[in-house]
């Protein structure tokens, strides 16, 4: 077995700001990697670079033997709608609000070439059940769903093509605490059942402990600490990680 996605020596500057400063990351099939850090730490930038949306100034990202930032746009889009999934923090950024729930789930299938209406309906219904939505509401628009339900719909839309790697940008951010807990349970179950590899951005240490196998702690564009999830949280070495962990316990 080898790494699914690998990046090394990533550098990216926005003017005077070092958004990424010599960052190396890898992820293996079935592995969940949490990227933890406060806003401005560079974690969102890292996710965008890893997923091919923003090119780094230096360094490379390799997926399945291919240099992601050397791929043509057609290949990269193809990757995005088959092998990869991207879950946005705000469900509205990841959903088409003017299109029914079923259409939202089916779009990736159609993009991947499915041309059978009945098969698309069946897959949409199956995925609505998997994310604990009522398939009878398949023809409702996302605006008629609650925030937590919209996020589950976004996850169904993302997973319907059975991607190998999912990028999740604070998927539970902005939701009520009880809704967050349910969504985390769902993500944990799906990730386990599907054997997904996932990058999971969060500033929620408890969520990282629950979902992640490995944790990367980012600060000022650098990875200051990384390792086994429980070791980073129970035996943090870097001053910043100790601060992060202690502030959670104090809260």
């Amino acid at each position, binding site marked *: 077995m080898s790494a699914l996605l690998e990046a090394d020596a990533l550098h990216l500057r926005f003017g005077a700001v070092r958004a990424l400063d010599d960052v190396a990351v890898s992820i293996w099939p079935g592995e969940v990697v949490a990227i933890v850090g406060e806003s401005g730490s560079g974690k969102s930038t890292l996710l965008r670079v890893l997923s091919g949306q923003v090119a780094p100034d230096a360094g490379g990202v390799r997926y399945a033997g291919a240099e992601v930032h050397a791929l043509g*746009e057609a290949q990269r889009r193809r990757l995005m709608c088959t092998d990869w999934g991207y879950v946005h923090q705000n469900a509205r950024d990841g959903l088409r609000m003017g299109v*029914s729930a079923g259409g939202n789930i089916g*779009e990736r299938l*159609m993009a991947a070439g499915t*041309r*059978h*209406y009945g098969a698309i309906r069946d897959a949409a219904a199956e995925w609505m059940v998997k994310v604990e939505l009522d398939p009878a509401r398949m023809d409702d628009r996302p605006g008629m769903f609650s925030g937590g339900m919209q996020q589950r719909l976004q996850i169904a839309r993302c997973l319907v093509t059975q991607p190998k790697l999912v990028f999740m940008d604070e998927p539970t951010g902005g939701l009520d605490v009880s809704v967050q807990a349910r969504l985390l349970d769902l993500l944990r179950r799906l990730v386990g059942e599907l054997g997904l590899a996932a990058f999971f951005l969060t500033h929620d240490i408890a969520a990282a402990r629950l979902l992640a196998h490995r944790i990367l702690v980012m600060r000022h564009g650098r990875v200051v600490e990384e390792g086994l999830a429980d070791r980073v949280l129970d035996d943090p070495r870097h001053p910043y990680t100790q601060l992060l962990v202690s502030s959670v316990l104090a809260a």
Partner: protein
Amino acid sequence: MIRRAILKALAIPGHQIPFGAREMPLPYGWGTGGIAVTAAILGPRDVLKVIDQGADDTTNAVSIRRFFARVAGIATTTRTAEASVIQTRHRIPERPLQEGQVMVFQVPMPEPLFRLEPRLAETRRLHALGDYALAQLRLYEDIAQQGEAGSAYNHPVMVAGRYLMSPSPIPGFDNPKLHMSPAIMLFGAGREKKIYAVPPWTEVRSLDFDDHPFAPVHAAQGCAFCGSTASYKDEIVADDAGGRVFVCSDTDACREGQE
């Protein structure tokens, strides 16, 4: 310059080619795109037919025909069989087109993704990538919400398996006539300054699903004048009691049918 755009359009079937639209003696929306294309291709021996909703005798059709007779000195006709160039709005004649004939379509909105993706730069990108999931998604929504594909007019087509194309606002009934036609199909959009084309003998498929194949709607009754059941009909109110009859939309085909 328009001829060069037409050649380019023929070389890349279904792909929209921008062109510099000329000043026209009538406002946009009255067929300026079609007139520009017709003017660019007419030769001295051409015979021109102009139809509007299938009819040769509407104001617009008559004016355009007269305009070209006066300006280009060419012969005009209302008979599909005799025409070498047919400028049209909304219809393709019922009589099968022949090799050597040229159809010129007046196009109000050339971009088939217009209602799905408002950003023009993004639609160009989607065409370049051949990414038509959005159009397929619209079709999915139509079937899910209405039980069938909603676009009775202007139902998008895939040209030569590569570009998604608006057939202009022709009824879905006419879409199959684009497929493997012996005639040249030229489309001119004056306001949007785009020309596109389907060369002869080109595959043109209406967008659909495997289990919901594209099926154009046929009128329930035959034509009240010629009795044809195969033609595309207009439904008209025939008396003060609100009684309705169906008549051929293609007046020349109806005339032939009555002879």
